């Protein structure tokens, strides 16, 4: 489903940082992959390169057979197939919860009003906040906002969902409700790439864990291998700090 081959990315501003170094990996359809690593390890950059929010300097990325980095690729069409959830939710504050979910369906998918609203209602029910459909995002708790953001991404019927530290900006008591939604998605067979520090989620849900440090993939393995029997010293150090 997702294939990254020798991807490199260097930031020049404010100073030169090698964010991604020769990143190569393959993610199968239906797989749930957790990407973890210390801050500044390039995990978010990797995720953002997958839908070209950041443009990789070199290498190849294919999603569902489409070359992401090819200039001829219709990036908007591709992005519609790749849902993304951000750390800071990024809901549209001038639109109601329902409008947040219907906007892209209407504008990008060209669905009818009724179809958009039915989809929105179904998704709000799925993430457990159907009673807030006419509220504005500012009146929702962080956990509720993030669940709306997940519903907004799901409304496009994406083939892949990317989560960029979806629980890092949440108060601890709200993390669970967001993780529950993500677990449901995983059980339904959604292909997911999740950047997170929630090791409990990784252990319970992930098919594979990718550990990154200083822009490179250091170790890849099943959660069992990763948590009980890591081979690299840097992985061990990271786990000792975080667990």
């Amino acid at each position, binding site marked *: 489903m997702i294939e990254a081959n020798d991807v490199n990315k260097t930031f020049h501003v404010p100073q030169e940082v090698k964010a991604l170094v020769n990143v190569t990996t393959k993610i199968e359809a239906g797989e749930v992959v957790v990407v973890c690593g210390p801050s500044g390890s390039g995990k978010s950059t990797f995720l953002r390169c997958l*839908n070209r*929010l950041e443009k990789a300097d070199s290498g190849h990325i294919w999603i569902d057979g489409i070359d992401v980095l090819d200039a001829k690729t219709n990036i*908007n*069409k*591709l*992005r*519609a*197939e*790749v*849902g*993304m959830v*951000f750390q*800071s939710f*990024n*809901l*549209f*504050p*001038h639109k109601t919860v329902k409008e947040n979910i219907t*906007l*892209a369906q209407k*504008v*990008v998918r060209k669905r009818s009003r009724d179809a958009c609203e039915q989809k929105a209602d179904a998704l709000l029910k799925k993430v457990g906040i159907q009673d807030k459909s006419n509220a504005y995002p500012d009146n929702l708790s962080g956990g509720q906002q993030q669940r709306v*953001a997940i519903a*907004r*991404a799901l409304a*496009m019927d994406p083939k892949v969902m990317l989560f960029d530290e979806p629980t890092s900006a949440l108060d601890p008591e709200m993390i669970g409700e967001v993780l529950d939604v993500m677990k449901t998605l995983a059980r339904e067979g959604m292909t997911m790439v999740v950047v997170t520090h929630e090791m409990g989620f990784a252990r319970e849900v992930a098919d594979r864990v990718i550990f990154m440090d200083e822009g490179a993939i250091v170790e890849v393995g099943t959660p069992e291998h990763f948590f009980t029997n890591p081979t690299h010293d840097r992985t061990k150090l990271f786990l000792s700090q975080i667990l």
Partner: protein
Amino acid sequence: MENSKTNRVSGRPPHYNLWVGVFFVIMAVGIGLFYVATQRISYNWRWNRVPLYFAYEDVVEIAAEMDGEVESIEISGDEAIIKVTDGKEVQAYSVPKNSVKVDEKEIISYGDVLGSYSKWKPGLLIIGLWLTLKLSVLATILGIIIGVAGGIARLSSNPALKWTTMIYVELIRGSPLLVQILLWYFVIGTVVNDLMAVYGLGRIPTFWYGVASLACFAGAYVTEIVRAGIQSIHRGQTEAARSLGMSYAQSMYHVIMPQAMRRILPPLAGQFISLIKDSSLLGIIAIRELTKAAREVVTASLQPFEIFMMCAVLYLVLTFTLSMFVQHLERRMATS
């Protein structure tokens, strides 16, 4: 006790009523001093003559268009029908019945007055106010279009768009509007009108050069306001919109601009209040807007202070209305 508690809840400072009183005293003293000043100068105030320049009654005379004899005068309702004949042809004129100036069988010649009626006409100040309003509204609309396009172009990564906009903004903001108006009319206007003549088209009225110069001027300021407004919207908004598959234009239209609009409304209002007042410079290219009209009235009436003060009041009416309208918009946007 109860009272002081509610005061604290509503956030009123101590001695609130005292300071309200102070406010009224300041106003009264200010107005009083102004009044004293107006009386101290040796000037004969004739406010009663001012309404004349808002509206006046004009007498329209109806004259015969042939030589001949008044054949008959028939009264029907308030009108009198005067029939004039030269033996071969009969012409009928309708005039108000109490203004008839001829008798039956009277011999009249071409141009003799048969009767007259009076009609209310707008005075010069009202004509000027109307023109200022038209100029300002058109320039505001065009200025917003230029400014939104400019603001987006200014943030583009395309150097042609970005640098052209930068030069435009710096040139327009850095040079006097008066000079720009003159250039629009005498340089651009001459070229355009010459070109129009080559293709057999008529001249573009001066009015439109006035609108163009104001719109171009306001557009530069609006460009900067729009740019700042767009930049104030968090990058995450664009990223969220784009990650859903929206194009740049779609994300601008549906996500960024509606949010930016709310933030730029107050500075935009200030800009267009300035624009209304700046339109007073257009008199230089013989557009008879409010200030030019006022100057003409002053020349005719020799009442400079009344007329210019009235002129200022009329500008205040326009700017205050705009101000209120924008506040209304802000409130509406805040609740939606």
